[in-house]
């Protein structure tokens, strides 16, 4: 039987500051706290979901300095001095939706909604670089995220709808 080493020692917390959805958040966190746990438990931003905790399903995807990352596979301390955008911060203000969020509603691009925040991040990341993607480009971009409800068809439809509307 192994002997515990740090049984009665509280793990030291580290100070971090992360700009989350435009708001600077200063906290002390345990170095082992994952970014997704920090967002959900410390900040109450429960829109970001935990799915597999090993980087495959993509439900926890957030933007880190405008690039999509798996928030389950990194520590909050690694995001120190960086910018994080979660699903709650996608739209410019309360009560407004982005075109892609709106298109998800219009095209029924979700069912249970659990993968949706991560999927939205993948779609927004795509459109940031490729404003008018082809269907193949959409499929390629969202292949990073698993959805068990939609079969992806209506997600592709939604992104095409959102990006074509912009063209007009």
């Amino acid at each position, binding site marked *: *039987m192994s002997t*515990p080493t740090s*049984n*009665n020692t*509280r793990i030291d917390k580290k100070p971090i500051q992360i700009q989350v959805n435009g708001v600077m958040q200063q906290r002390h966190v*345990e170095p*082992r*706290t994952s970014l997704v*746990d920090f967002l959900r438990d410390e900040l*109450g*931003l*429960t*829109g*970001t*979901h*935990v*799915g*597999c*905790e*090993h980087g*495959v*399903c993509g*439900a926890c995807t957030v933007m880190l300095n405008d690039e999509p990352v798996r928030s389950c596979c990194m520590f909050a301390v690694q995001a120190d001095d960086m910018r994080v955008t*979660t*699903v*709650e911060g*996608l*739209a410019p203000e309360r009560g407004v*939706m982005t075109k892609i*969020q709106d298109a*998800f*509603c*219009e*095209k*029924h691009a*979700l*069912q*249970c*909604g*659990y*993968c*949706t*925040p991560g999927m939205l991040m993948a779609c927004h990341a795509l459109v940031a670089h490729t404003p008018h993607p082809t*269907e193949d480009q959409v*499929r*390629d971009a*969202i*292949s*990073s*995220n*698993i*959805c*068990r*409800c*939609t*079969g*992806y*068809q*209506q997600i*592709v439809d939604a992104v095409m709808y959102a990006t074509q509307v912009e063209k007009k």
Partner: protein
Amino acid sequence: MNKAPFRFIGKHRRAVEHKRFVVGKGRYAADIQLPGMLHIALVASPYASAKIKNIDASETLAMPGVHAVLTGEELCRHIDAMLPGVDAPQVTRYPLAFDVTRYAGEWVAAVVADSRALAEDAAELVNVDYEQLPCVVDPQEALKPNATLVHPAHGTNVIFHRKFVWGPVEEDFAKCDHQLSYQVSWARNATVPIETFAVACQWNDSTGILDVWASIQMPKFPDQVAKALRLPGNAVRVHFDVDVGGSYGVKRGLKHSVLVGYLAKKLGRPVRLVEDRLENMRGGDMQGPDRVFDVTLGFQKNGEIKSMKMRAVDDIGAYSGRSPLQLGKPVGAIVGPYRILSVEYDAMAVMTHKTPQEAVRGFGQAPTNYALETGIDKVARFLNMDRIALRRVNLIGKDEFPYLIPSGTHYDSGDYDTVMTKALNTAAFEDLLKERDHLRSQGQLAGIGISTCLEPSGGNSSFEPLFNPKNQTTTWMDSCLVRVDLSGAITALMGTSTSGQAHETMVSTVVGEVLQKEPDGIRVLHADSLNALPSNSPVGSRMAIMLGGAAAGAAKKIKQKLLTIAAHNLGVTAEDLVYEDGHVQATNNPSQKMSWDALVEIAHRHFHKLPEGMEPGLQEKFVWEVPTGGMLPTEDGRVQMYPCHSFESHVVLASIDPETFKVSIRKYVCGHDCGVMISPDVVHGMTYGGIAHGLGAALMEKFAFSPEGQLLSGTFMDYLLPSSAEVPAITIVDHCTPSPLTEFGQKGSGEAGYLGSPAAIASAVNDALSTQGAKIDHLPMTPQAIWTALNVARSAQA
């Protein structure tokens, strides 16, 4: 009825639920934060079969922030066992193992601490002394006379076995020109929702109520939690307004909830358990049917299939929840869409030292459809007959409904040939053949797959008494309450949770249709189990039928009440009045009318204007019994299983990469008839998702075990789920044959796509392999399985 002028039903409408999800304001069980909440981590057995000799938790309990370590020994003394759905009283199950463990991953102890991370640290310090015992992992081994017993007190590893004979099987076989036997197997896979199971419980000493927030889709969940915890039913309040991140059957979580409920009560603090992915994959509320089918079909040389013998052996794992009953649902569509006159069905559920099964989308119907459809293709190949022509010979005709199948179920309605033809036309079948042959001429393996199958829907209770004579349950009602407040706003209340089926949208559409009011103004709420009307949850593709029917029933009572009030005040009879958009006027005299607002005002405030004996207010409930339900099975096991029968026909073009043996789907068309669609976007969404899910079952997904009973695919790295890279663009072709049994002609569709796509994709792969003299009769058809099949064929030819 096909062309019924519905105002809201069948129209595109944004789902009410979506907005909260796309802005990150869904509220799932893992989002529940309660002041002072404690968290659980689990200690799991590393062995498939072991005796627990000792559990030493002293180090764990000494850790700051640890509040309790619960073992099976304590828990079992204070709760009642969960029993299997069949008559096997010795096969008891508790949330934590007691004395012995029966599968690798079975929970042995629960550690409660201030945070999940701390609880996990502490769980590592629980020292369990095991004595490893022999295990049985292969179901064929488990059936042998001297096999190791998973539950010695039960006396055998067979937990359910019944041979049904419906009709003169032997005589029919004797009359047939040919018979053909084959074996197919369906690997243990599941629906694998992206949300794992989560439950939070809070006990209140002063009210004596246990509040439960759980990601459930399960019939009788509140009753079962209460019973196991030895509490009266009215001491458990399950909050059905929690969003559930996918279920498709597996979100059961009874043992989780009993465990957390017990700890919340014992500690007097709110407690939460959120499974991690491994706990979810191997914990026993996840894996689905795991079957070997031995089938013999008797048929004429013109292709008419006359009789079938089917033996299904299902490896249910170490314990039984609903799993043996998954052999039951197929009884209601045992002959598929075909005119097969007699059937012998030998259904057996066997226990092994593996993770237990749970109910999975289709409740056992998808494997049975795959087994039957494989046979149809085999008969066609045997007779050198076109697969489509063979199906046309056997499909039940549209004028033959209601059609009675040998196992006692009437199919309500359908037009199978037309749906298949529509799918073939949309797929441009002749072009598809050319494309396949062009691919083949270029040296590729390519094949076309076809399937035609039924989707029984409207889940009723009949498999319960069929598989357990002591269980006389004959109703699985569902209900809805509709109320109109003083301002005239309409609110509907349902007694179940939602896991993506858009029930709020469905109910508001139905109530809006009946009351002729804009659905977007109708609010729909999920009640909790203490103030809800009875529900049996969305299992069995039943909510369009049952909740839709109940909502319509309640709304019609409101409408009738408004008509009665108007008649009383206008001095006419209700029959002389017409209802339009909530207002009521005399048929022959349009000046005699009363507005919605006036009628609502009278109902709520003007008691003197109400007919004598009428209750004030506007609130009506309707509890609906499953159409065709309410009956016990006959002695020979004939039963009206589900009331409604949707139909689907899939057409697939697939090719196989000659170097990697990976299957690519190049074309996918699904013809689908689920009667009147209340929300077409929702129905299509579930069908797309079901097809993708079936693609996983056909090509990728398997819970594999080592000979020692270790789960080999406990992560998404080795249990492969289809992504958008594997799932093709899918075309759905609708057809509508209304059900004569339901309010609007709707049928169920929650299992759509999944019931037919594994068979169709398997059919395409086998069509491709047939050019090499190879075949595969087991799922999933992984690259390795294809490579093996081709090598076997080549060495046989060499």
